[in-house]
């Protein structure tokens, strides 16, 4: 098994993946590939299976059928070290409200085996929360928590960045900041997967789209300037 330090990859392949929860089928025979530098939008209506796909890509669930390969390797072969290269930001922010911003970042940095200084100071600066570092997260607004959660998910400089509805409840400025950050990450070689049903946010940000409905992949193609029309043509036509 490779060591944590040696795990890296520049492609993620979803190969004929299905996922069932009891008798309910959440994902059915989905296949696609994302490469370093991609910002792939997983688009589809609520309940399409986007979050289930993100959960499996994050190794938090295993496919019922098919497999997900990271640089051609299975998660079982790469071991826990694979998770040093995966960052997840979901609608639930994965922060402890009782702890301060600094304590949260310190905990997650150490959990990933990283030296907390100067990493957390830089992350707090980047989130614009340096002056609120010692305040409890429970006292933060939704936008402040979201910015902190973004930094938390990127502390370990992941190769695969998974964002599940990251723009929920944010104002335009915060959305712009996150979008800029995603573009920089992709430019620096990250593989960014963005699951959203908000086409306005995805427009101009994603360079490829995977359109999903009822757990099935309906299209995997380059994003065109009229994303909403592209979405309606495929999702609306089914």
């Amino acid at each position, binding site marked *: 098994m490779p060591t944590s330090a040696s795990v890296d990859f520049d492609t993620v392949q979803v190969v004929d993946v299905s996922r069932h929860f009891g008798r309910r089928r959440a994902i059915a025979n989905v296949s696609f590939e994302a490469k370093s530098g991609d910002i792939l939008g997983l688009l589809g209506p609520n309940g399409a299976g986007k979050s289930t796909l993100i959960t499996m890509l994050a190794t938090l669930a295993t496919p019922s059928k098919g497999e997900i390969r990271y640089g051609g390797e299975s998660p079982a072969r790469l071991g826990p070290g694979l998770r040093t290269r995966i960052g997840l930001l979901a609608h639930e922010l994965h922060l402890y409200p009782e702890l301060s911003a600094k304590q949260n970042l310190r905990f997650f940095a*150490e959990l990933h085996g990283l030296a907390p200084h100067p990493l957390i100071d830089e992350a707090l600066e980047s989130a614009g929360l340096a002056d609120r570092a010692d305040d409890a997260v429970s006292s933060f607004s939704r936008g402040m928590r979201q910015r902190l959660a973004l930094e938390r998910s990127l502390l370990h400089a992941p190769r695969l960045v998974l964002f599940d509805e990251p723009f929920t409840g944010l104002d335009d400025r915060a959305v712009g900041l996150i979008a800029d950050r995603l573009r920089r990450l992709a430019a620096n070689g990250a593989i960014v997967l963005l699951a959203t049903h908000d086409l306005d946010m995805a427009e101009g940000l994603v360079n490829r789209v995977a359109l999903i409905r009822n757990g099935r992949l309906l299209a995997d193609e380059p994003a065109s300037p009229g994303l909403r029309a592209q979405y309606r043509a495929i999702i609306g036509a089914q």
Partner: protein
Amino acid sequence: MFFRTAWLVLRKDVAIEAKSWEVVTTTLFFAVSCVLIFAFALVKDGRAVGDAAAGILWIAISFSGTLALGRTFERERYAETLRALLLAPAPRAALYTGKLMGMLALLGLAELLLVPLVALLFQASAMFSRPLLLAGLLAGGTVGFCAVGTLFAAMLVRARSRDVLLPILLYPIIIPVIIAGVRGTAALLSAPPDEPTAIMWIGVLTAFDIVFVTLALWTFEPLMTE
């Protein structure tokens, strides 16, 4: 990485508890209330009924432990932080171990309060005549209870009816722990203290602990990703 991760999870839980005192106070309050209610019911004219002290001690430990298990994992459910923990690049059993250590510390604290209280209210000071055997019974029983309880509480963290399901799943499996704890403690309370019987029950508890800690460490990762 394994023990470091477990230590980080424990330290984080202690840091949260130091700010809120939510789980410690509710657990201790419930444990003491439980003992007081039984004392009102089972102590007549300053004399306790039969082996009541041993039974009350283990009922208070298991009931307050069940409450603590639910509250501890509710914290991880609130902002889905359990998913963030599962993304740590360490064997996922390390997270279980960290949570288990937290539960052991919490129930250990409850027992420090419960044992003298039960001894006082049920005239059971004889349990202190063999302190090492008493410590062995408490340690063995607490590890067994927490080993199974921590696994089930983690499994149920996203279940809608987790508060109902936890005791339903937990108690049938930990009945041997409670029986061994009660019979071992009762043996210490007999006059004279029955050391061989207490040692036998400590052996039963140790065997249970080895089996269930091993099973929990082995099954935690697949259970949390299925």
